[in-house]
């Protein structure tokens, strides 16, 4: 889980009351306790009146390991779990708008297919695709698209849940393990259940 220089990333899943000001309470807590939010995803949960938040926080190891306990002190936080060391499956979604004039469009579309991204909008000079998966998969696609001219990259941040089986996904933890690596490794596809 180490990200180098004594800093650490942790994945926290929290069920919170869907009320005004909840995000301000949480972000205020993070600020004053010295936690840095690497990514944050919020949305309505399966229970009415409750939202699910998935955070990836980073900071010194001694500090970030207290994130869940501190969050649990907030009255509006109903349930919180630090799932960093748990057997989790997680995904991130990105929308990527890239230059795609007729000359290079074929090549861009081929990458789209390899990465199982979907083209959701197409114009004369550009196209927009959506891709979901682990961070490494998205990072490597972005890296490959860079030479065509990236116009816009929008990422959701990570959402995560505990696995329903005891079978561990080997590369689901890539978000963390590659965090300190300056180079991206082209992922190997491994069938439908893979985590590319």
């Amino acid at each position, binding site marked *: 889980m180490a990200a180098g220089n004594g800093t650490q990333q942790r994945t926290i899943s929290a069920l919170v009351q869907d009320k005004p000001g909840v995000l*301000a309470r949480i972000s205020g807590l993070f600020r004053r306790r010295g936690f840095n939010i690497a990514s944050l995803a919020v949305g309505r949960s399966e229970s009415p009146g409750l939202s699910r938040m998935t955070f990836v926080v980073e900071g010194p190891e001694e500090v970030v390991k207290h994130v869940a306990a501190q969050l649990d*002190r907030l009255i509006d936080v*109903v349930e919180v779990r630090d799932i960093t060391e748990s057997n989790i499956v997680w995904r991130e979604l990105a929308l990527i708008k890239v230059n795609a004039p007729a000359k290079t469009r074929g090549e861009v579309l081929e990458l789209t297919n390899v990465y199982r991204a979907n083209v959701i909008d197409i114009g004369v000079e550009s196209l927009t695709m959506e891709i979901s998966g682990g961070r490494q998969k998205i990072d490597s696609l972005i890296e490959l698209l860079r030479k065509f001219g990236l116009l816009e990259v929008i990422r959701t941040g990570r959402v995560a849940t505990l696995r329903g089986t005891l079978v561990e996904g080997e590369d689901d933890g890539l978000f963390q393990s590659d965090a300190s690596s300056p180079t991206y490794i082209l992922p190997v596809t491994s069938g439908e259940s893979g985590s590319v």
Partner: protein
Amino acid sequence: MSKHLSGSQIVCEALLKEGVDVVFGIPGGAILPLYGVLSQYPDLRHILTRHEQGAAHSADGYSRSTGKVGVAFATSGPGATNLVTGLATAMMDSVPMVAITGQVGRAAIGTDAFQEADITGASMPLTKHNYLVMRADDLGATVHEAFHIARTGRPGPVLIDIPKDVFTEMGNYDPDAPLDLPGYQIPCKAEESQVEAAAKLINESEKPVILAGHGVVLSRAFDELRELAEKAQIPVVTTLLGISSFPEDHVLSTGFPGMHGMAYSSLAVDQADLIINFGSRFDDRIVGDAKRFSRSSKKIHVDIDPAEINKTIAVDAPVVGNIKDIFGQLLPKVKQKTHLEWLQHIEHLKAEHPSLRIPESDRLMGQHVVKALSDVTKGEAIITTGVGQHQMWAAQHYQFKNANSWLSSGGAGTMGYEVPSAIGAQVGNPDKLIWSICGDGGFQMTLMELATAVENNLPVKYAIMNNNHLGMITQWQDFFYEGDFQAETYTANPDFVKLAEAYGMKGIRVTKQDELESAIAEANAHDGPVIVDFVIEKVDDLYPMIPAGQSVEELIEEPN
């Protein structure tokens, strides 16, 4: 059964249902509709303070001294922001309080209206929880939730902000509606495995020390603490806020440790093989350098707040739950012991490091004053203090006999706490003797509340340690800033005896040691508030001292 009432009425009915009989506050435009119905609720006694900070600290002093939730009212804008120091003080020391503030009308919120301030935003990090209530229908449930949150678990202040037109709106109030607080759990008993692990460490230890913090006071576990200490013959060190959780004339009482604590107390903590921490958060004033804090000991940390475990000090056995319940679980598992050798060693430490230095001087010193107060009141008064040298002299030299008789701003370190907190304590304890030990600096931060004491016939005794200096500042500038004294001297203090008289109080001045006892007795005998102006030596350093961030290795016991 649901009632149809105005928002103001709902607030008052809900307060009464929570058992509130006194409120400290000061009105203003946005909260006037609430004041407008107070005459319908004569059982809600309102104490008019002169400043909102005074209302907050009075509610705090009332709460600490009675165990009930203190309540403060303030209006919007500056009224609400003036409460903030009081909220922060209560938050740092886990004091249960509910503050109700008026807000501008709903339509004006967010428009920078006259006397508008975002008090829920401002107080977010300084309260346990806060609310902005936008419908009269929600008021009743919110008040009940606020009290529940304030007084349960790790207690703390809760603020309810109410727009002016929500006070006047009609709404439904169901006093019996269940609370809707999913995920809010109140720890009571600890897991049995944690208790077992702690009991094992206690039974194996040869040199144990109990570190009793504010948690013991807040959970009113005085008898249980004493029972455990006596059963296993464990010396009891109290933190600054743990003072008066254990009788100081008890043979096992080992003082308070840390920056200005007793040297023998700090040394006992350092030399122990086991620290049993009941409800202290290993504050930096006790720990100093965390890496060098009591290196050879194992640590048990009993706390109601799981977020405190391993926050500053890594512990061997965490026990999470309500301290009073945990004592009940722990007591039968702890074996009777004598720890004779260790207790003899502590006696030796006490003899070798007396720590309660009273300088040999013909002049009047702060320590003389506290010693005399302790003797004349037989250690039975409730003491409130401000922050600084006088606070430490009070902590060191007053020998507390009664449980929960020490009210001081430990975490926030709020100067000015002494004047209004004493008012709150006296309101909550009309038959008890309250002495407020003040510095001349802090006293002048909140002295306007003297009028509140006079107006309500509250016989608080104010002891001003008057040295025309910010004493602690003077000492730090001397020790750590090469004697470069800046802004440490007060050259224009008022004549505090005349000030007392101007407020219609009794004023007494004491300048000599041999006047002390008679002046204190005279103040005690007076049926009304008194200021005693103790004109003490201008500059006197406070010992023992462990400089900030250091350890017992840097302990300074006496002046060079």
